[in-house]
């Protein structure tokens, strides 16, 4: 499990524009570099990120809020920041997935008043 740091407001007013931030520990190895011993370092990238919103009391995978495709030129430990409008209480489900079967999901709850 990679370490992550999420910044999601715990409480928001209905209709308020909120900022979500997601930082994850990942090498983002490009596949174009060699180690100090001259061996090619295999590519190890996060390829995609999605953030979905699941309203409280509802089932399913939720509504897509934001997604991004990540490439080799993106730094290690990628930091993503985006905005959305809070309209109901529920859970943001953030998923990173990439090479070597990497997948990680984190959740953040929000209460909307």
């Amino acid at each position: 499990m990679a370490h992550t740091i999420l910044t999601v407001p715990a409480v928001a007013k209905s209709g308020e524009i909120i900022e979500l931030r997601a930082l994850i520990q990942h090498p983002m190895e490009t596949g174009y570099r060699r180690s100090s011993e001259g061996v090619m370092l295999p590519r190890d990238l996060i390829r995609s990120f999605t953030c979905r919103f699941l309203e409280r009391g509802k089932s399913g995978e939720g509504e897509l809020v934001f997604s991004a495709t990540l490439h080799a030129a993106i730094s290690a430990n990628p930091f993503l920041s985006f905005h959305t409008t809070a309209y109901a209480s529920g859970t943001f489900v953030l998923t990173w997935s990439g090479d070597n079967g990497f997948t990680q999901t984190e959740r953040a709850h929000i209460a909307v008043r």
Partner: protein
Amino acid sequence: MIGKSTKTVLLGLGLGLASAVLTFAPPAHAATTAGAGAGAGAMVDARKSGYEFMLPATQVLQRDDSQNPAMLWVKDGAARWSQIEGANGKSCASCHAHAKASMKGVAAKYPAYSSSLKRVINLQQQINFCRAARQGAVPFALENPALLGLESYVAFQSRGMLTAPSSDAVTVAAQNKGQSLFNQRMGQIDLSCKDCHVDLAGRSLAGNLIPQAHPTGYPLYRLAWQAVGGLQRRLRNCLVGIRAEPYAFGSEEMVALEAYLVKRAAGMPLESPAVRP
């Protein structure tokens, strides 16, 4: 439907872009030069942290914990703090309980004399000593990511506190040795630390400003490394840069240089986990 009602804005991918967009008021721990410490009375302290030589975008990255990638290492160290390791069935917390209280100010005095090892050691070596002697575990290689996590977590407890180097006879001897190494020209390029970091501090080296070499932010996240590293890794970079044979991690010379640099920065606030370009 959320798809219609939401407006998503990508502020930036990666580290540099995102931080350029956001501005924050500096919190209390933001690095500013300490007026106290070495300076006497009304004398203005001319010492500046490396923070003040950075671009505003990189400064924001350091100030804001939700963006600072070094916080991932702090988080890693926090998880390891209570993890049982080694033959004695102990974690760091078994002896030191809550790091928040027990580790406050600890990082501010390293490198320090170890009465068990009878020599001056840095914080990584102290953590490794605890690991071997108290936990009965295999010590980490210096600059190992796990060790950097623990070091970051310990150093984080002293953020904002003033550097307080030890002044016992053995540490002072190491500081003096470090001072002579600092002033000694070496390598094919024949430069001393002093040539750049005292005489030419604030001037440009290629595209970069030369800082005054105050190690107040270590361990820190260096954008060039894409990772957290310790002071000795940074010293190694400079030694390679002047084409000198780098000292080994944990060697007497490395610790002596570290001890002198910390003494030079006495009274300046600790910033760890800092970010540097």
